[in-house]
């Protein structure tokens, strides 16, 4: 029994790394821009395709593919602000946005999926594992590829948290999240911070896509189910709360992993949404509330 529990726990933690990489970026974007980015899964897909292009087509080393995916997704994210968000923001002025940003990013999601379909086709593409072999833990075995996902995710997230706490631009990102008018009075250029934030969130998703390419097939809509699940995670953690998103990623992934012991596996994907609905009804501010702060 203990062996089984440990096995599910390890699987849950590994899956939590991917969820965290994805959900923390989504939460960061919401916390700073107040935009629920429905197109976040497409940044993940773009990362996957860039990895396929670099590693399968150009035969470059996996490290180059992952870095390329991060850079490509970052640049795409950065471009989203001046091309899409800023013009709508200007038109709205001081009027409330309502669901307009949600609809805008839904449009972006469809545009990117269709573009990927048109340029790369709808085939399920595969990338060979970046690292081969399996780590035998006694109670269970984990592939090094999955451990790589977890390790890289944790290093990147730690880097993000350090950046937000200690770097001048990271502090500016937090300042904008807390009080954009006051941040502007400190000389902070809001459009630049908004674009940087979108870039960082997209880069995290892009790295996720590149890291998962050997485990999932890469296809245009590969990120969409993850986006929906990340909504549940960010709501559980508290919208805009990065530490909350990190915590909630592991809560959901472990709940999913352990649920297999109690319910049929085809119900596993419902766990996140049941948790989301319960949280919305009982504690809508999430586990840690909203704060892109400490």
């Amino acid at each position: 029994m203990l062996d089984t529990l440990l096995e599910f726990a390890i699987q849950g933690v590994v899956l939590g790394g991917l969820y965290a990489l994805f959900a923390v970026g989504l939460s960061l974007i919401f916390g700073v821009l107040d935009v629920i980015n429905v197109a976040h899964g497409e940044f993940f897909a773009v990362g996957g395709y860039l990895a396929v292009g670099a590693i399968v087509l150009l035969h470059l080393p996996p490290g180059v593919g992952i870095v390329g995916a991060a850079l490509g997704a970052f640049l795409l994210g950065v471009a989203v602000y001046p091309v899409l968000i800023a013009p709508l923001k200007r038109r709205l002025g001081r009027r409330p946005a309502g669901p307009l940003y949600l609809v805008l990013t839904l449009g972006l999601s469809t545009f990117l999926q269709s573009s990927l379909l048109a340029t790369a086709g709808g085939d399920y593409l595969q990338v060979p594992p970046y690292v081969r072999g399996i780590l035998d833990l006694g109670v269970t075995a984990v592939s090094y590829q999955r451990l790589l996902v977890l390790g890289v995710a944790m290093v990147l997230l730690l880097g993000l948290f350090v950046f937000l706490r200690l770097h001048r631009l990271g502090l500016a990102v937090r300042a904008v999240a807390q009080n954009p008018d006051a941040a502007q009075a400190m000389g902070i250029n809001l459009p630049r911070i908004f674009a940087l934030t979108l870039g960082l969130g997209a880069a995290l998703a892009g790295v996720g896509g590149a890291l998962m390419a050997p485990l999932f097939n890469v296809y245009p809509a590969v990120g969409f189910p993850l986006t929906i699940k990340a909504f549940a995670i960010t709501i559980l953690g508290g919208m805009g709360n990065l530490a909350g998103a990190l915590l909630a990623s592991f809560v959901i992934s472990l709940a999913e992993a352990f649920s297999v012991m109690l319910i049929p596996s085809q119900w596993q994907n419902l766990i996140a949404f049941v948790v989301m609905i319960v949280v919305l009804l009982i504690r809508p501010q999430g586990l840690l509330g909203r704060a892109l702060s400490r």
Partner: protein
Amino acid sequence: MLLSVEDVRAGYGPIEILQGVSLALAAGQIGGVIGPNGAGKSTLLKTIFGYLRPTAGRVRLDGRAIGGLRPDQTMRTGLAYVAQDGGLFPDMTVHDNLVVGGHTLPGRRAVRAAADEVLARFPLFGDRRRQLAGSLSGGEQRLLALARALMTRPRVLLLDEPSAALAPRYIDRVYETVAELHRGGLALLIVEQNVEAILAVAHLVFVLDLGRNAFGGTPADLRGSDRIRRLYLGEDAA
């Protein structure tokens, strides 16, 4: 003149709040802006600083037109602005608020030096650098907002109702700081409901009413005008 506002019109969308306001402030002067609620006092500061774009008229700093610049651009010309609520980052520490205040300074060393200088002026924050700004009392938050605005050594400081909702001892502390800053050569333009507090320190007073200049002169001139005292200070004419 260091700061001049010439016949400025501004507002929110189709609603024009400022309908041709003018004022001028020389280096090292303290200007007070008073008037009834809805006169456009806060709107005037927001327009000078760039939160609102003037639809007509000019704002100049040292002869350079700054009207229409964004706040982050205006700030780089030498203006600083402290909002009525202080505009702190409540979930950041006192220290981090000061560091963000020094965002435009070149490098960590310059930020550290500026923070040390500011903390020397505001010793109450010296051993509370790690405290969250949002956990400070209302008066302390206002003082921290003032301290943060000094990180970049502005030439003109715009203060929006610095004494609003403060206990008397903090009002005294805020105005002691204002007097100190003036002695250091800083020009200040202060919107204030607390008329006695501002008249005690200002060199020039501007009364706004319904978005227009109703009076401009020294505090002595204002006290000498029965009409202004009656209409805007709520005093009986002697």
